[in-house]
């Protein structure tokens, strides 16, 4: 449920998200004009049409499922984050007005989620990874794939938080249902974004916005940021392991206790690792997630390169 329909948000949330969107778009308009100059009109028009057309193509993901591109990060890698925000806003606006996909009253929230937070957050992930790893072909493709996935998760979390703030659904089940759904969608989005970017980089590299090689400062900042984030994640995982997590809290509220059985299959049931207990489990968890993401990113990049 990326597009929130009318009726799901409360008045204060609608007003707050609308104000935040207006502020975000004002910055985007200003920065995009400086970046694109007289190329702005044709480039934004073309990108808007492209995102619409691309959303009509369904990619088979196997097991009878399919996904379509959301396109925020892909357009961001072509035009830079600010112009991509305007493109996604144009798309969200037309979807609300012409196709009733997302409500008119919820337009502020949908713009904030998909155009501002989705594109902005996704592009931050993209730049961050490039700052960490440098700007080679494979690294850019892997960064875009991870950013595409990350951007979709950010949108899902934002939707869940807004629904919870509106008192429509409690936060924990909203995060599980909406955030979890978007995490699954994010896999498809990441793979498609990486694959399409790889092809464009090979066929028409001039279309992709150049990313300058990171300066020593940028690298240092990125490494410091990553260390901070990993420390925070370990801390959070450590805290979470001593409290019931979102899924368990949701299950308890719904009066389900059978869900416990699902953990029997997990290697560290309820996060207790053989060595050193909860803290060790947290470290292993964070490292495992990081490794899996890294391996997937590299594999996507290599396959596209070899294809």
């Amino acid at each position, binding site marked *: 449920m990326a597009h929130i329909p009318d009726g*799901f948000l409360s008045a204060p949330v609608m007003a707050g998200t609308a104000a935040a969107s207006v502020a975000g778009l004002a910055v985007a308009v200003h920065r995009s004009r400086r970046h694109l100059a007289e190329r702005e009109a044709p480039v934004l028009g073309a990108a808007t049409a492209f995102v619409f057309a691309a959303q009509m*193509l369904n990619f088979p993901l196997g097991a009878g499922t399919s996904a379509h591109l959301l396109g925020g990060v892909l357009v961001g890698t072509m035009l830079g984050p600010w112009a991509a925000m305007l493109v996604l806003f144009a798309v969200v606006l037309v979807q609300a*007005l012409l196709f009733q996909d997302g409500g008119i009253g919820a337009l502020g929230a949908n713009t904030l989620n998909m155009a501002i937070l989705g594109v902005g957050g996704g592009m931050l992930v993209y730049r961050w990874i490039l700052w960490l790893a440098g700007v080679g072909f494979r690294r850019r493709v892997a960064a875009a794939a991870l950013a595409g996935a990350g951007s979709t998760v950010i949108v899902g979390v934002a939707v869940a938080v807004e629904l919870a703030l509106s008192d429509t659904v409690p936060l924990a089940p909203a995060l599980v249902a909406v955030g979890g759904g978007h995490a699954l969608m994010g896999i498809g989005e990441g793979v498609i974004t990486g694959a399409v970017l790889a092809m464009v980089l090979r066929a028409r590299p001039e279309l992709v916005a150049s990313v300058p090689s990171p300066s020593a400062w940028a690298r240092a900042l990125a490494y410091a940021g990553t260390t901070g984030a990993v420390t925070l994640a370990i801390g959070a995982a450590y805290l979470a392991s001593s409290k019931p997590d979102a899924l368990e809290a949701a299950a308890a509220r719904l009066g389900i206790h*059978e869900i416990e059985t699902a953990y029997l299959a997990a290697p560290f049931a309820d996060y207790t690792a053989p060595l050193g207990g909860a803290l060790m489990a947290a470290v292993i968890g964070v490292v495992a997630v990081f490794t899996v993401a890294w391996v997937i990113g590299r594999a996507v990049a290599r396959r596209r390169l070899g294809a």
Partner: protein
Amino acid sequence: MSFHHLDQYATVSSPVTRATPTARVLAATAIAVGTAALPLGAWEHLGILAGLVVLVAAAAHVPASLILRRLAGPFVFVLAASTGLLFLVPGTPLIHVGPFGISDAGLQRFGFVLGRASVALTAAVILVSTTSFPELVQALRQLRLPGAVTTALGLGYRLLYLLVDELERLQRAARSRNAGGGTTRRRRLLVGITAAGLARAFSRGERTHRAMLARGFVGDLPSLAPKSWDLGTALTLAVLIVVVIAITLSAHVRS
């Protein structure tokens, strides 16, 4: 591909289509926002707003069958989204479906959210049924939306038909050469088509823009028959907005 079937009631003469598109956008926004902002459980107020929407639809001469047909698609989506509320809202369980329970609070919220969404959706459907896309862009420009966005919308609308046809041509060409059998190959083919579509969109955009500049484009798409504000439209809009605000506020005061 074309959207012309969407605009068939935009040319019908009615009090709604005679009003400037800006007024129509403002009216639809007022009704949608007013409805969406109703507090949970304000059924009477929702009923009054629903009545107001029916009145507007009658004034616009949009047949109910068309509204229902265009509501169907988004309604299915809204229904699916609100079904989640049935299970996610805590309260006294009434019915058990497998491991999940439907609570009384969940059922009430499901009904009200669905009602709010339907009324707001209908207002939006009436707006697009009575307003063509160029008129909509003109209204958004009058409402001081950034020029970059309105130009992107106008050009994007122009390019979309071309681009979708282009993508269909690419897919047809691939199919006629037996390309894309099996999930993996089909996925790779679609990636290629998407990348080609992206490249073509940008070159088409540049070309269209150069052609438009050559024809005197200065960043503003002129309209052949611009509708302007008149006293009647302004007064009707003002009354409508005041009524919607009064209904929504009274619902908040009572709850």
